């Protein structure tokens, strides 16, 4: 464990108990990216600080029972049973008990109490009980459990200070009264029912939730509202993020220009401008989409809609072996696979999460668009087909559909082979609708953004620098007669990247790629849209020229079949180091990005080969 001593307090509770909200409100940004080797589902590690001490707390994944049915539940159970080497048993437990879902919380509590650790109870959602004109007797709960009970209204911050104070006084905590010994689940459930009748009384069901669900889960109204919400979601990551991304891109490119012009031409200014600044820029540019997508996902999850959306779309996703919750990461991947893959954390089933992450890069991300538009506008005539549709648009739509269809097909195959398993079928609880806590939202979102910058960002910058070195070395002498564009063209041709392109060109020859196209494909590892820049450099047109120049040059030099083959290749190939580094981050090893790269390369190669064969 990464903090000084390995003593810490664990947060334990059922899903939707308000546990993570409470944890976020309590720790704020005093968090650390956990470093727990060999664990893919990383629990959050945070700190509660007062004048004298800093107490580590860990938010263990929510579970209904200590008999786990999924990998994240299993993590909680193995930590509590002290079965892991990387996370020892906690010294004490804050049990987060949801007053509006009291029976299920008490069920889990009765199992956790048997561990015999020091505990306190944070009783959340007490306002929800009042809203259902009910009462909860927290004194009776204290008597029954023998523990301190702290009532909490998380999103209003009520009770948070008392909880904080209690956490800094761990020595005053007690062991819980032992519940009776149970032989069967039935006995435990009945005990829970008997006890809960003496502690809590409230009407069945929350009025607001019932009214909202009458619309949001209505057979027709539900689908319409689902489509509307997803349309806003899609629109937000596509359009609302664009101005910020443009701003970041133009900011970094003017910074590049300032460096180039103030330092003059030379290897150092080139390194700083085209290597370092461009590399850092290519990381920062993801932030608007990551932030917007995560704000959206956290709000949907915290307010309770995510469970409903999963319910509505589950049948469709089930056809391909996935489940309802896979829908959002996949939809997000149309903007960019990076935030898409990060948002797959909302899928509790490990197997479904892995499958979703591994097919996410097949969804047509916005970085493929510049490549598609360049090739399509250069090689596909703008004719009208079917009396109405432009052929160019039909081809573009076809490329999108092909990516989605193949992705779902691959998911189907993976769920039948690689991730076949004994997971229980789709089972989801509908929590009451709740107002999300703004503080918890901002903590979650900034935590994920910082996590991306720290773990994926460093890898992306390093790899961009390596790619820069490959295209900048060995240096060729300046030719005084050459224009700067010709100079760039020659430099690239004689660089390692050019040499590698020429050496491995035979590999791509069956696809109809010459060495220039090969270099373009290699260069676009930095990001797919770099293909356009590299093509511009190799064909001696400046990026500041209009695309028309490049288009006509390409038309004259690249055979039609090869152009189609390039399109086919980009539908499938995982040409993106950023996606690979986020896959590494989210799966915990390079094994999975390597696997994804290999299967997508094989798909891309086979498909491009086929297209080239047919077209020529």
């Amino acid at each position, binding site marked *: 464990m990464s903090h000084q001593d390995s003593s810490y307090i664990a947060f334990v509770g059922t899903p939707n108990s308000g546990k993570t909200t409470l944890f976020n409100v309590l720790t704020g940004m005093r968090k650390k990216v956990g470093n727990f080797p060999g664990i893919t589902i990383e629990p959050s590690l945070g700190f509660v600080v007062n004048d004298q001490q800093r107490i580590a707390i860990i938010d263990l994944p929510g579970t209904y029972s200590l008999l786990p049915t999924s990998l994240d539940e299993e993590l909680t159970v193995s930590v509590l049973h002290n079965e892991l080497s990387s996370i020892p048993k906690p010294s004490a437990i804050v049990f987060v008990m949801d007053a509006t879902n009291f029976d299920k919380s008490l069920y889990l509590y009765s199992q956790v109490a048997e561990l015999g650790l020091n505990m306190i109870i944070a009783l959340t959602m007490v306002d929800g009980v009042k809203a259902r004109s009910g009462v909860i007797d927290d004194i009776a709960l204290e008597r029954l459990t023998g523990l301190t009970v702290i009532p909490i209204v998380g999103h209003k911050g009520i009770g948070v200070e008392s909880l904080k104070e209690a956490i800094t006084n761990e020595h005053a905590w007690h062991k819980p009264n032992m519940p009776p010994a149970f032989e069967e689940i039935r006995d435990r459930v009945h005990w829970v029912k008997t006890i809960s009748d003496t502690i809590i009384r409230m009407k069945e069901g929350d009025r607001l939730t019932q009214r909202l669900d009458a619309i949001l889960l209505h057979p027709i109204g539900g689908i319409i509202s689902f489509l509307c919400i997803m349309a806003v979601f899609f629109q937000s990551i596509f359009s609302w993020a664009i101005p910020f991304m443009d701003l970041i891109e133009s900011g970094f490119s003017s910074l590049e220009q300032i460096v180039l012009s103030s330092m003059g031409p030379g290897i150092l200014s080139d390194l700083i401008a085209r290597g370092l600044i461009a590399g850092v820029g290519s990381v920062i540019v993801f932030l608007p989409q990551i932030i917007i997508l995560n704000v959206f996902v956290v709000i949907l999850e915290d307010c309770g809609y995510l469970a409903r959306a999963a*319910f509505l779309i*589950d*049948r469709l996703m089930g056809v391909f072996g996935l489940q309802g919750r896979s829908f959002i990461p996949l939809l997000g991947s149309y903007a960019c696979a990076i935030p898409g893959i990060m948002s797959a954390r909302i899928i509790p089933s490990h197997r479904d999460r892995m499958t979703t992450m591994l097919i996410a890069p097949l969804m047509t991300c916005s970085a493929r668009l510049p490549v598609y538009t360049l090739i399509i506008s250069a090689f596909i005539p703008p004719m009208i087909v079917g009396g109405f549709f432009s052929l160019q648009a039909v081809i573009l739509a076809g490329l999108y559909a092909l990516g989605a269809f193949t992705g779902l097909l691959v998911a189907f195959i993976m769920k039948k082979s690689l991730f076949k398993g004994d997971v229980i*079928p789709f089972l989801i609880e509908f929590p009451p609708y709740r107002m999300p806590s703004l503080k918890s939202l901002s903590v979650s979102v900034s935590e994920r953004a910082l996590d991306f910058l720290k773990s994926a960002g460093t890898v992306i910058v390093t790899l961009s620098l390596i790619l820069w070195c490959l295209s900048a070395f060995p240096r060729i002498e300046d030719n005084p007669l050459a224009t700067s564009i010709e100079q760039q063209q020659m430099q690239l041709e004689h660089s390692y990247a050019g040499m590698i392109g020429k050496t491995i060109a035979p590999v791509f020859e069956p696809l109809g790629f010459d060495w220039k196209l090969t270099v373009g494909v290699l260069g676009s590892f930095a990001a797919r849209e770099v293909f356009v820049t590299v093509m511009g450099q190799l064909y001696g047109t400046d990026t500041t020229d209009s695309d028309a120049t490049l288009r006509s040059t390409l038309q004259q030099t690249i055979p039609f079949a090869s152009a189609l083959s390039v399109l086919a290749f980009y539908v499938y190939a995982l040409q993106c180091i950023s996606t690979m580094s986020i896959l590494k981050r989210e799966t915990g090893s390079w094994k999975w990005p390597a696997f994804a790269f290999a299967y997508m390369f094989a798909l891309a190669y086979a498909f491009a080969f086929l297209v080239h064969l047919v077209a020529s």
Partner: protein
Amino acid sequence: MMDDTLRTMPIGSKAILTSLEGDSDFIRRLNELGFLPGTTFTLLRRAPFGGPIEIGFGQTRIAFRPDSSVRIHIHQFT
């Protein structure tokens, strides 16, 4: 497969769960959530196109796939 009675049970109607057969993990989790033989529940919704079904009992509302792994036997009120 669910019993025909659950499949054809009208939305909004009540029934008593009589027994569960099949995948033991799934049954255990349904039991832990309080869905035990003897439980009176309401069929609240069916998702479109033969998707999951939603049932309610007490304060609990859960949805699950009408999956082949569990047989649900019920006694419907008439």
